[in-house]
């Protein structure tokens, strides 16, 4: 018995004639405006402000919840005579000192870790020990060791930056591909030069993530530390400003202080980190 497969009829599909559609299209003006990121973000902010204002008016007790306009007013009143700005300046100088020391130490530790076995064990042990430890919990100790003042704040700041950054940087270094490493070795790069020319550029996305996390941790720690104690009230920064105004029941100024913290966070994220990303990892095609 022979089986014959079913025979399929052959046929031809005639293609429709190709017409070139227009390459450039006009988008209506509203849509074009809507496509700007800052417009969308602005609308979100505006909606939040309106909600806040309405909630505050409904609550009708500016001691508990000052309205948006009152807060804005307190913010301007704080900025105009320079009081708020000088507080921000005090906080920022302390913050940057702690941040920079933390970065230097983190790079030292990770460089050691990628070059020697003992360094690797040292880093993994130390990060496992200290990373879960909240920096603010070290404040009492730090006060004992460094006394009341800037140094004890810098100590807790270094602690908050160091481990997060070291962990991220080390993970980034480990993720650098063998090909790139071998290319570096081919040029005869060793030690610090190898780290600087091969590992750091290749691991930059995770280093940047670590820097961002470290920055956020440092901010939080600083404000919390200043809330707990201001080194001395005259020299306290933004956290102290918030704390003192809470003590004096100036809720609108408390909100103004919080707004300043948020604004600085936005500025640093959008101006500093985004620019740096655009100039490096985005330009090199490492990140979208």
């Amino acid at each position: 018995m022979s089986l014959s497969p079913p025979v399929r009829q052959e046929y031809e599909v005639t293609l429709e004639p190709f017409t070139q559609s227009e390459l450039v299209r006009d988008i209506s003006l509203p849509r074009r405006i809507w496509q700007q990121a800052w417009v969308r973000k602005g609308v979100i902010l505006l909606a939040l402000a309106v909600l806040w204002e309405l909630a505050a008016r409904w609550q009708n007790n500016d001691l508990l919840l000052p309205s948006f306009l009152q807060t804005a007013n307190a913010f301007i009143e704080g900025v105009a005579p320079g009081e708020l700005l000088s507080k921000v300046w005090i906080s920022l100088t302390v913050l940057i000192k702690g941040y920079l020391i933390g970065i230097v130490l983190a790079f030292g530790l990770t460089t050691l870790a990628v070059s020697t076995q003992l360094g690797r064990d040292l880093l993994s042990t130390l990060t496992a020990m200290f990373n879960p430890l909240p920096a603010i919990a070290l404040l009492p100790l730090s006060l004992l060791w460094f006394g009341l003042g800037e140094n004890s704040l810098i100590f807790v700041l270094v602690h908050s930056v160091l481990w997060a950054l070291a962990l991220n940087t080390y993970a980034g270094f480990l993720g650098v591909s063998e090909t790139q490493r071998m290319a570096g070795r081919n040029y005869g790069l060793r030690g610090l030069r190898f780290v600087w020319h091969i590992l750091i550029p290749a691991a930059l996305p995770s280093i940047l993530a670590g820097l961002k996390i470290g920055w956020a941790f440092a901010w939080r720690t600083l404000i919390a530390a200043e809330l707990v104690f201001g080194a001395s009230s005259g020299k306290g920064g933004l956290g102290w400003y918030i704390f003192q105004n809470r003590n004096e029941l100036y809720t609108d100024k408390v909100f103004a202080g919080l707004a300043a913290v948020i604004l600085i966070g936005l500025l640093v994220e959008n101006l500093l980190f985004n620019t740096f990303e655009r100039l490096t990892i985005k330009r090199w095609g490492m990140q979208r």
Partner: protein
Amino acid sequence: MVFANKLSLACGLAAAVLAGGASAEGKISIAQQFGIGYLILDVVRDQQLIEKHGKEQGVDIEVDWNSISGATAMNEALLAGALDVVSAGVPPMLTVWDRTKGRQNVKAIASLGSMPNYLLSNKPDVKTLKDFTDKDRIAVPAAGVGFQSRTLQLETAKLYGDKEFKRFDNISVSIPHPDATSALIAGGSEISAHFSSPPFQYQALENPKVHKVLSSYDILGGPATFNVLYTTQKFHDDNPKTYKAFYDALVEAAQIVKADKVAAAKTYIRVEKSTLSEAFVEKIVKDPEIDFTVVPQRTFIYAERLHELGVLKNKAQSWKDYFFEEAHGGEGS
């Protein structure tokens, strides 16, 4: 938090309606701080005077005692509605009165007694306020805003002019009394001065290295109220009987303390579970500088000067502006 307040208020209202319109009378929650300055409240608590005076008014009063440290926490608890009556120094009370005027209308109920607060130092060359330098650190419970800081500000304004009243805030550090006392006695830290309170100042002065620089009585010109009790207009108006029972209990407690100071000292040690010796507490209670009275003394100096310095926005015409009318009878000031 705000929403929760409204919610609890609504629940409370609903409960009141369900209970057949029973008033909120018969409940009072009181918060006190630590130290001999709260002796009157300790006596009230020990002898259950509020319950006793409540019965005379025909209401059974349920009293809830709390211990909170610091005026800021007190104020927040009061404004959030978590506590009915709170206690703190005169300047923090004036701050709340000023900020809530026309809203919650927080006012003082009564004084808890007049007692001096000493500015102490362990540096032999610091004899007056002018001897302090930038290297010194003055420990206070709440830098810039507490009783001690405000009193220091009044003196600073007197010495250096009104514009300079915050001069010593720059070298003030917020440290609780017990820690500051041990730091001052031990020496060797940055803390070279402490604006203290009873009983801590007497403990510190027992050490020969520590000496008195200034007393709050010198600054204010005589015996002056240290702590006051205060509450909101709403509590005062909604609970006339409970309020009166509370006020009467305070008056009676003050009389009890004055009548038998030895027993009062014992009460203090018992209620506060203090580790101080009985003789020591007795000496403080018997100190002629200290007067356990519910009548406010020299509080108006703060109201007047702090308004002039711009700390308070509202100007009080007399001390009666920020005390509820029950307290107006005595010879307050």
